[in-house]
């Protein structure tokens, strides 16, 4: 047992005395006593009244020359153990778990909004987080993906050369407006799907929350930029019923991993090829830039989807059949769709054609046909990367919605 000393001078209760005493107590070891020295009789009279209510025992009260000494035995405290510290000028999100401890396989479903590493006080509030099992939502790439997303934000108001959108041939503009409208319509689904899961993720999995928030933010910007480009040239295009039907089945999916497969791997994966095509063939720099910037974001989303499905299958091999079934069920609901909507196909040709000369139209038509073939090959490749065998990957790719998203 050690006797420690706390010189409180003229401090009073309510004006710093209890702050200083509590801070001194926090530095004590179990069994230590604290001598609090105050200058005034008033301080020596009110300190014990506070100490008792704070749960500290008053062991002794005495004069010491002109000063007053109150000896306290602090209430046993489970003071938080100090942890490792950060010793670098940047704080990558991946470092969070080194400081706070590893992510648990199962988080407390009823836990409150407790920041990582904090000790929760007993509380009556009770949540019921549907997504409280790590492996149903996790990949080890989440932290670096979230950091990349934060670094790669752009601004649909200022970062697009909007002046380039003016003055296109009417046919080309009609194609651009329809393709942009079609992409924006699909991006709405990519917006709502992660947003729906976001509110159900256990606060323990902060990396998942950061990731989903960046995903939602990206898609909000995509809807914005493609809507703006669709309107910029003065044309009005159609929101397609077939697209609506396809997106509805995506929004109806209730399993996080199945949604990641359908949206991130298959849908956004396919859109990577579409956006590459648009950025390469667009008749104006505004359309090309919008497609290029959106493509950068979608690459992250696809990487997340592939990494998450790999993680899920590695931790729960039985999940494979459920994921295959999710793709099959969606395909069954979309049997009425046969092939890419002609409106979208023709608009892509108009967008890509250098002129309305038959030879240019023919070149553009072949480019669109090549695109559809490339989409199917790349989808199969991504499914393989996500952990499906060759024949399953091929079958799932062929079952993917003709709407592309």
């Amino acid at each position, binding site marked *: 047992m050690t006797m420690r000393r706390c010189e409180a001078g003229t401090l*009073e*209760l*309510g004006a710093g005395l*209890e702050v200083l005493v509590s801070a001194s107590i926090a530095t004590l070891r179990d069994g230590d006593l604290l001598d609090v020295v105050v200058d*005034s*009789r*008033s*301080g020596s*009279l*009110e300190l014990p*009244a*506070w100490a*008792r*209510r704070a*749960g500290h025992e008053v062991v002794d009260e005495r004069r010491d020359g002109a000063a007053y000494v109150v000896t306290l035995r602090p209430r046993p405290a489970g003071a938080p153990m100090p942890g490792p510290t950060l010793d670098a000028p940047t704080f990558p999100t991946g470092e969070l778990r080194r400081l706070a401890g590893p992510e648990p396989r199962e988080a407390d479903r009823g836990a409150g909004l407790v920041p990582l590493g904090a000790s929760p006080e*007993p*509380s*009556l509030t009770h949540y019921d987080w549907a997504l409280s099992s790590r492996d149903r939502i996790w990949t080890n790439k989440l932290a670096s993906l979230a950091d990349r997303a934060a670094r790669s934000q752009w601004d649909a108001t200022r970062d697009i050369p909007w002046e380039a959108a003016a003055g296109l041939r009417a046919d080309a503009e009609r194609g651009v407006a329809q393709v942009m409208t079609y992409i924006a319509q699909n991006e709405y689904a990519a917006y709502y799907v992660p947003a729906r899961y976001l509110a159900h993720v256990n606060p323990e999995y902060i990396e998942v929350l950061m990731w989903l928030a960046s995903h939602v933010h990206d898609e909000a910007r995509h809807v914005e930029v493609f809507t703006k480009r669709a309107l910029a040239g003065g044309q009005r295009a159609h929101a397609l019923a077939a697209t609506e039907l396809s997106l509805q089945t995506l929004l109806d999916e209730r399993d996080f991993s199945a949604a990641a497969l359908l949206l991130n791997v298959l849908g956004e994966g396919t859109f990577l090829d579409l956006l590459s095509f648009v950025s390469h063939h667009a008749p104006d720099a505004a359309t090309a830039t919008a497609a290029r910037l959106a493509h950068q974001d979608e690459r992250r989303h696809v990487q997340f989807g592939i990494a998450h499905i790999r993680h899920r299958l590695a931790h729960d091999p039985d999940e494979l059949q459920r994921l295959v079934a999710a793709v099959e069920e969606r395909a069954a609901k979309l049997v009425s769709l046969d092939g890419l909507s002609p409106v979208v196909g023709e608009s892509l040709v108009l967008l890509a054609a250098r002129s309305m000369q038959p030879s240019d139209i023919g070149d553009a038509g072949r480019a669109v046909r090549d695109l559809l073939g490339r989409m199917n090959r790349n989808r199969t490749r991504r499914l393989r990367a996500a952990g499906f065998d060759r024949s399953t990957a091929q079958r799932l790719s062929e079952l993917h919605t003709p709407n592309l998203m």
Partner: protein
Amino acid sequence: MISVGAVAYHPRIVTIWERFREYFAEAGVPTDYVLYSNYERLVDALVGGEVEIAWNTNTAYVAAEERIGGDAQLLGMRDVDAEFRTVIAVRRGELLGDLAELAAKRLALGSRDSGHAAILPLHWVREAGVEPELVRFDTDLGKHGDTGDSEIRVAEAVARGDADAGALGDATWVALRAEGHPAVAELELAWRSPVYYHCNFTALPGFDGAAWSEALLAMSHDDPTLRPAMALEGVKRWLPADKSGYATLTEAMREQGYSA
């Protein structure tokens, strides 16, 4: 079903006793509560057998004990009730050496039925052989000082200069300091009383309160479902009660002709 009487000095009393009622039912001693607007009615109810247990202030307990004839049972009290003190506050720098220096001064007291803010301090001042001019704030009579209202008026009177010293419960003093109440900003403590007991659960002599008392003492502040109600009641731990902490108050109430 056991009936516990309590005084409704604040709306939170309902919150507290709704939770406690649930707790006692789960503990196997079904208990209901009956609220009164003042401690005189509560003591009547206890003595008259309307309730088996009364959650009494120290003043109410002493009054009940007089009527019961000294055989009342005590079933428990809060940790804070076991170590209560009265303090005397003065304007900063106007320190008292001891209570005798109050002789030619004005002493502010809280409600005249408050043990901690009126009856006991007056007793100790007279014991010191002085008879200061009294400035009384008899607000919320019948509540025995539970609301703390009269003690705020005491502090304000001293701060304004309408009194030279004022008596408060030390719990009220700490609370006013903690919340930075302006009334105590320019005051400091000049004196502190010996320790005495405050509230307790009082029962008539023939009542078998063993199981109820055991359940009360088993209430845990670590239980998050109980903690809010216990915090409202100002208790971290319930303690067994005895009569040793009421001698001074009993004497003071007799001297001052206090009757319930």
